[in-house]
C-alpha cells in the first residue's frame, strides 16, 4: 500500500514525505517505543499517539519508513524536520488508534509485521 493511499484512507495530512513510492506491507500501532523495538520484524508503518522526537529515533533505528500520529496529535517542527532529514515520512490523522488500525486492516494492510 502506498503512502498516498494510506493518507486517503485515514484522511491524514502528509507533513513530511520523502519517498512516496515506498510500498507499506504491514503496520504496528504502539505508544511504547521499546515494544516497537522488541517485536517489530518487518519494515512497517508505525501508528502512534506519542508525540516525541524518540518516535523518529525509534523509526530510524528500526528502518521504519513512515509514521502516522493518531488522535489528532500534530508533531512540532523539530520532529517533522528530524524525520525529513532521516528520510522518514510523517502523517497526522484525527482518527483514534483503534479506528486508524481498523481502517487500514480493512483496506488490505494485513501483514503481521511482528
Amino acid at each position, binding site marked *: 500500500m502506498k503512502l498516498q493511499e494510506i493518507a486517503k484512507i485515514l484522511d491524514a495530512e502528509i507533513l513530511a514525505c520523502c519517498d512516496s513510492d515506498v510500498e507499506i506491507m504491514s503496520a504496528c500501532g504502539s505508544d*511504547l517505543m*521499546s515494544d516497537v523495538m522488541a517485536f517489530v520484524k518487518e519494515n512497517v508503518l508505525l501508528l502512534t499517539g506519542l508525540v516525541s*522526537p524518540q518516535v523518529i529515533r525509534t523509526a530510524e*533505528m528500526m528502518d521504519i519508513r513512515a509514521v502516522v500520529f493518531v488522535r489528532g496529535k500534530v508533531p512540532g517542527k523539530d520532529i517533522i524536520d528530524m524525520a525529513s532529514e532521516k528520510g522518514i515520512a510523517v502523517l497526522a490523522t484525527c482518527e483514534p488508534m483503534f479506528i486508524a488500525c481498523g481502517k487500514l486492516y480493512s483496506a488490505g494492510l494485513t501483514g503481521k509485521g511482528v
Partner: protein
Amino acid sequence: MDLYYEIPADDLAHAGEASSRVKKKLVQLGIDPVKIKKAAVSMYEAEINAVIHGGGGSADVTIDSEKIIIRITDSGPGIEDLELAMQEGYTTASDDIREMGFGAGMGLPNMKRYADELDIQTTKNKGTVVTIVVYFSRQH
C-alpha cells in the same frame, strides 16, 4: 576505528544522537542491515538508559572488520537488582519517562535480545558500564 560520544544528562530531546551517528557510520561502511539494526537498537536502549537513569555518561565504540563493541558508561545510582531488571516489564522509571514512550521495562531485555554479547557491570551509587558486542559475520 574508535569513536567517542558524550551522552548528556536528562536531555531526552537529544537522547539517541550517539546511536544515530554510529548507525550512519555502519551504513557508510556497508555493513549488513540486519547487523546494523542489532547494533543500533541495543546501543539506543543503553543510551536511553544512561540518559534517564544514569545522569548521562559516555559511549566508546570500536569497529573493526568483524564486530562492533559499544561501551556505555554512566556515573548514576547503579542497578539495584540486575536479575529483576533483566525481566521484561520490570521498571523503575518515572511517569515523565513513560510519557516519552520508554520506561516499559523492555530496555535491558531488548539489549539482550539484539546484542550477540552483553555484559553489565554495576555498582550501587557508582554507576553502570554496559558492553554490547555485535558480530558482522553470518554465524552470529
